[in-house]
């Protein structure tokens, strides 16, 4: 036990004070902050000030209906949209001026409604950016609504009645969590979850591979036999797994501190952004829990591969199946509906659980027993993998040269 602690300490110190660790610890959050805050910044700023929409209405009838439809309010009570009608003649006369005004930011959007819009025409949306999907969707809906109203009216229906009949249905997303309705749901949680999943996936991959590389380095630098004269193979392996794992934890904590710090600062400076960002302590707890579950199952396997091989090439080749066992669950996780029964089953299984169960906890609120079962199954898997890896470690660490065949490795498992 004491020796295992010494090994952990050595591993930890040698990694934490390395340049690579410092760089990734500092750069990581910057990239993540980018993920979080840049979209949130734009989304909140898009809304913070009214959008000026200039409208050139060739039809002469659709434009006048739009002010009623674009009646959204900003949080500060100001109207979200300012519609400014442009005379067709003025536009025809000198379209460049109007285009220029959009480019100069005087107006945000130039909307052109053609004469035949009621029959089959297509409206044109001009802006400096055509990737503001929310806004484009909104504009399309509203124009559509106006056109529909007119068509129905032309068919002889009462405008009041038409308005009532074509009233759009609102849709609010609400996530039910521990019996409380939380008015955030999918829109804010999915991007955050994706970011967390990506970090989970990357760190498991990176730290797993670091374990493998570490074992391999100890083999090639021939320090392993020296270590074996002081401790046994099991101690050495645990030292490696916990040593590298504790480095990962420290990195997570550092990231969390930076994240909460910046969250706090952002909250101070522009509170309206916060509703797009979810950093609850619960999220962090599950994040660390599933990192540990994932890290220990994969790193035990990586340690075994490192012990089997004597050079980087062999290790690369032999570890690729394990890498796939990380990549495939990740891809499945991000493409699977969190509430599907497939997700329910897979989130219990080793390899899948760390990412999938984390996603379900974030998005679909699984039952407590499901989480407990998943953790239990994965802890058992970790014990099994560690036991197997220790067997391989014991024999493999003294084997140099040709990469062993699977049959040979199977024989190692039977050695005393």
């Amino acid at each position: 036990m004491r020796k295992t602690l010494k090994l952990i300490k050595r591993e930890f110190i040698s990694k934490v004070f390395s340049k690579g660790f410092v760089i990734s610890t500092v750069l990581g959050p910057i990239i993540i902050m980018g993920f979080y805050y840049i979209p949130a910044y734009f989304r909140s700023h898009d809304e913070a000030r009214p959008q000026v929409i200039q409208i050139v209405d060739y039809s002469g009838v659709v434009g006048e209906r739009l002010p009623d439809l674009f009646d959204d309010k900003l949080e500060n009570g100001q109207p979200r949209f300012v519609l400014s009608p442009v005379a067709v003649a003025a536009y025809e006369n000198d379209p460049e001026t109007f285009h220029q005004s959009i480019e100069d930011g005087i107006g945000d959007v130039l909307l052109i409604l053609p004469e035949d819009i009621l029959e089959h025409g297509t409206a044109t949306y001009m802006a400096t950016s055509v990737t503001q999907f929310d806004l484009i969707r909104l504009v399309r809906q509203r124009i559509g609504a106006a056109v529909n109203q007119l068509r129905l009216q032309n068919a002889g229906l009462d405008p009041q009645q038409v308005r009532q009949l074509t009233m759009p249905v609102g849709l609010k997303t609400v996530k039910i969590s521990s019996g409380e309705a939380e008015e955030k749901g999918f829109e804010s949680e999915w991007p955050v979850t994706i970011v967390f999943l990506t970090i989970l996936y990357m760190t498991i991959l990176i730290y797993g591979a670091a374990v493998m590389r570490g074992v391999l380095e100890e083999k090639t630098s021939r320090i392993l036999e020296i270590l074996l004269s002081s401790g046994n193979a099991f101690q050495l392996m645990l030292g490696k797994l916990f040593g590298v794992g504790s480095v990962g934890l420290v990195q997570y904590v550092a990231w969390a501190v930076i994240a909460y710090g910046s969250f706090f600062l952002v909250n101070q400076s522009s509170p309206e952004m916060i509703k797009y960002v979810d950093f609850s302590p619960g999220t962090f707890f599950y994040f660390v829990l599933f990192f540990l579950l994932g890290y220990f199952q994969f790193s035990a396997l990586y340690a075994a591969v490192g012990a089997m091989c004597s050079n980087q090439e062999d290790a690369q080749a032999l570890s690729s199946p394990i890498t796939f066992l990380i990549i495939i669950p990740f891809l499945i996780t991000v493409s699977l509906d969190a509430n599907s029964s497939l997700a329910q089953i897979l989130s219990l299984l080793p390899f899948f659980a760390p990412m999938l169960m984390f996603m379900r906890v974030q998005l679909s609120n699984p039952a407590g027993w499901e989480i407990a079962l998943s953790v239990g199954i994965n802890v058992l898997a970790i014990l099994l993998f560690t036991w197997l890896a220790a067997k391989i470690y014991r024999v493999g660490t003294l084997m140099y040269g040709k990469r062993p065949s699977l049959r040979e490795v199977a024989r190692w498992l039977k050695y005393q």
Partner: protein
Amino acid sequence: MQALQIEHISKSFNHFKAVDDVSFSLDEGKMFALLGPNGAGKTTTMRMIMNIIVPDAGSIRIFGEPFRESHKNLLGYLPEERGLYPKMKVLDHLQFLGEMKGLSGAEAKKLAREWLERFDLAERAQKKVMELSKGLQQKVQFIGTMLHSPRLLIVDEPFSGLDPVNTKFMKDVLLEMKKEGKTIILSTHMMEQAEKLCDEICLINKGKAVLQGNLDEIKQAYSQNSVTVEYRGNAAAVQNLPLVESLNDYGNYMEIRLRDGARPGELFRLLAESELEIQRFEAAKTSLNEIFIQAVKD
């Protein structure tokens, strides 16, 4: 007290018998050589003593007790393939190795400083291992093996890959350890070194112990009828002399084993009468090398 007692140990790898029913024992304070050609099973035997490999059969007792994990703190082991963490600082590394042998951090650090001082490495204490020359790295390695003052020191091919300066250094360190009353097992295929250093030997060939015991006694037993001759000329005829049992000819030098009852003086007379130009004639104890070849042949 017996430092080590090995009884009938065997170890196979994939049907290859690396060590086959080897037994020997060793009193405390002795220097013991495990001799044999490459691949004879020396390293496997040493790894079994260190419990790095578990024997398939047989038993090993260390200081009278069956192996316990804590015995490792009493043992020092220098494997043939040596290694250190290249990026660790020398002092930190030695401290780590000491701690792995059960020393406290402070103790290990203090001892490491003393040893570094002793070997003129004090000013390298804060250097990274990889910044040191190969020879200095070897020294650091030895210090790491001996830092915790092991009661039983096991060194596998201690002289392989060493330049003459470090070979002498290694030899001096081993002798010093012996003077301090430590028990030492070394393996080597260089017979001259073993011959000069060791009290007892065990010759291993193809996994089997072919000869073992006190070195002087063994030499006595093998030496009665042996002669070494330095000469110039063609020595082909010597082989056929009736009193020669066997002969190992190096071209200008030969080791001759006489038949039982034949006297060296008689051989000298015969050689003197032959066309050979005799430069030196010595009725000597047989070299360990000769004994080894003899024993393997038997």
